[in-house]
């Protein structure tokens, strides 16, 4: 007997017949049961992260796949025809075909951290028509991370201040040293996010790290290929079979590494192009950090 999902039956909607705002609302409603931070969920908008408790909906990592599957369950699309793109057919692309169930392929949801980014993903993959007006208000993945980090830092600073009030003597001195360090971290973070170019430079560094790892893997592949070329001249069929499987394994790893690299590349490029919506979010978190830093410095 096939496993029967214990969930409410939802009538799926053709993505071509609804607006981006409607899709966003449905996505938010679909993840309600996984949201442990009810207050944030109830006022969620396009830019509310699914994960995290301070500004996010509080969805746990064990329900991450459920977010994507909830989106798949609610919508229909015409991009249903599977077209193989790799010689062994393991990789496919979805082309126009009959109206059917939405399928989000492996890795396609890597940046869908908010309802707005999930809608953007559907547009990018051709399941919905692009809506520039809607996309204009969606904060990119890069800035969702930046803003999330800012909130966490602000929270850490507030907690350190709260603890300080109850202490005296050497304990207070130590706690004060921690507060000073946190203040310095908050100030440098605030300065970093104020400058889009500096932020992009920092994200670019992470991308370069990923790229170096990817290149290392490419050299591993070329070594395996060279070994295979050398072995092809001999008659050791077991050795050739083992090298072929080694080569196939490296190709799989390379594919995964490329997926990782795409995420880093996207983040690096998004960090440098700050939209009005992102600028407003950055201004909000900067204001908050400045205020908390001011209070911390007066301790």
């Amino acid at each position, binding site marked *: 007997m096939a496993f029967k999902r214990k969930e409410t039956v939802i009538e799926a909607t053709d993505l071509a017949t609804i607006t981006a705002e409607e899709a966003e609302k449905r996505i938010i409603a679909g993840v309600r049961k*996984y949201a442990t931070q009810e207050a944030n969920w109830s006022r969620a908008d396009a830019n509310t992260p699914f994960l995290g408790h301070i500004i996010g909906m509080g969805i746990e990592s064990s329900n991450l796949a459920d977010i994507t599957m909830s989106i798949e369950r609610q919508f229909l699309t015409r991009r249903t025809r599977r077209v193989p793109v790799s010689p062994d057919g393991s990789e496919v692309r979805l082309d126009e075909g009959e109206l059917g169930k939405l399928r989000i392929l492996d890795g396609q949801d890597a940046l869908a951290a908010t309802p707005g980014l999930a809608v953007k993903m559907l547009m990018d993959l051709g399941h919905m028509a692009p809506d520039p007006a809607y996309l204009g208000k969606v904060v990119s993945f890069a800035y969702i991370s930046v803003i999330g980090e800012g909130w966490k830092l602000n929270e850490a600073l507030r907690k350190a201040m709260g603890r300080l009030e109850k202490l005296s003597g050497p304990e207070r001195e130590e706690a004060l040293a921690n507060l000073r360090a946190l203040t310095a971290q908050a100030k440098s973070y605030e300065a970093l996010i104020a400058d889009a170019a500096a932020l992009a430079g920092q994200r670019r560094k992470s991308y370069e*790290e990923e790229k170096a790892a990817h290149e290392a893997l490419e050299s591993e592949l070329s070594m395996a290929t060279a070994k295979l*070329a050398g072995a092809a001249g001999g008659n050791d069929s077991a050795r050739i079979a083992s090298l072929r499987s080694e080569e196939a394994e490296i190709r799989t790893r390379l594919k995964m590494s490329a997926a990782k690299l795409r995420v880093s590349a996207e983040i690096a490029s998004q960090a440098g192009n700050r939209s009005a919506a992102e600028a407003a979010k950055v201004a909000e978190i900067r204001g908050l950090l400045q205020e908390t830093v001011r209070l911390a410095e007066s301790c």
Partner: protein
Amino acid sequence: MLTETELRRLRRQEFWSHLLAYPTYAFIVLLARLKFRYRFQDLRRSREEVWSKLETHDGPVLWAANHLTMIDSFLLFWAVVPWRRVAGSRWLPWSTPEFRNYHRTGGWLKGPALRTLMYLCRAIPFLREGDDAVATRWRDAAFQKCVRILREGGSVFVYPEAGRSRSGWLDPNRPKDFLGRLALAAPGAKFLCLYFRGEHQAFATVAPRRREVFRLYADVVEAVEPGETTPRSVSERLFQVLGRLQERWFAGSALPKNCGGNDVVDLASPLHRERIDPETGEADPEWLERHLTEKERAYLEGQPPALRYAVFWKLFAAKEAAHKALAQGGVSTPIGAFPMLEVDLFRRKVVHRPTCTEVQVAFTDDDGEKVHCVAVLRGGSVGDEGTPGDVIWRVEKVPDGEAPGEFARGMLLDLIAESADDIPSPAVLALTEVDGIPRVLRGGRVRDWGVSLSHSGRFAACSFMIS
């Protein structure tokens, strides 16, 4: 015993490698410096450290180094041997690379060129795989050649870990016997212990990245101390020496040393039972595919139905814990990319598939109510049934009305303060995040304590490691 032919070949290789030592050395150094732009930090200090101790020793030398890339031997040759010492044949080390890694690699030009270079670099081909008579004879002959070279006062280079470290960490508590055997067979030898690594080398790769900057630490110790009669006792001491050099290396590095993670799963959470049935083990195949690799799905399928639910969440907790340990070590995994990590519950390890980096895992709580997993990439050991590891953890129920994340953070600071005599109270600690990774502050300094936090349903958990 070596045959006459084998001995003759060994002599011939020694003759040619000595005769062409300068061009070979120049080729290696020029390639490393000009093509790959590699550089050693403080090379003069490293060489002085080595030669001040080696110069007074006129017996054989066993080089023992950590192993992270396939060109480590060339780089160490460049780092240890200065130009003026290349002429001294006995200082030029022989090594035992895996024959299959280079002997038939490449086409008509690259293949012979690589073989010639390896020949001139004094490679004694070694066959690590196979238990048949030919493979055993091959290994024995290689061992005998090494012994002979050492007894004649020469140098042999061996990687005591027997291969590239897949975690990027030399575990001092897991000695291998080969080097001990060699040392016992060559009286009067000394170990030249070397720990070297590029500043960006987070995990094992084929070659270091371009423009990499390396740091090398070395020590020269007796190969066999009085009272050491077994290969294991020799190797145990050697691994401890290498472990100390590794500590020195990390003390001067921007790479964090202690990289650990944890994860707890509440097995009674209704949300965890949605797509997998706790009684029958039946699961939504699409959902499984989003979490597990093909191998893991086959493993799960092979479990008795009543155990599948718990096994699935063990696999999940291991992935999450490993993901946190890897992130601390600079190895990232995109959010939700669960199949990029592959768990082997039998061998208690998780492999980060894009990089092949391995993380050791252990389950501290597995009682039907919850599963809690701790993971260690580097900095210490995760421990096993007989040996306690270096990770300290706690799992507790979240009191009603408390935010689980908040509770986990408080619990972590309490646990650290309780575990260390010099920390008077948790009030002197603070938590922050650096690049999305939780870090503890004490005295205004970010500490390398490999902290990790987790919560799920009714439970919160935390872990840390100081080694």
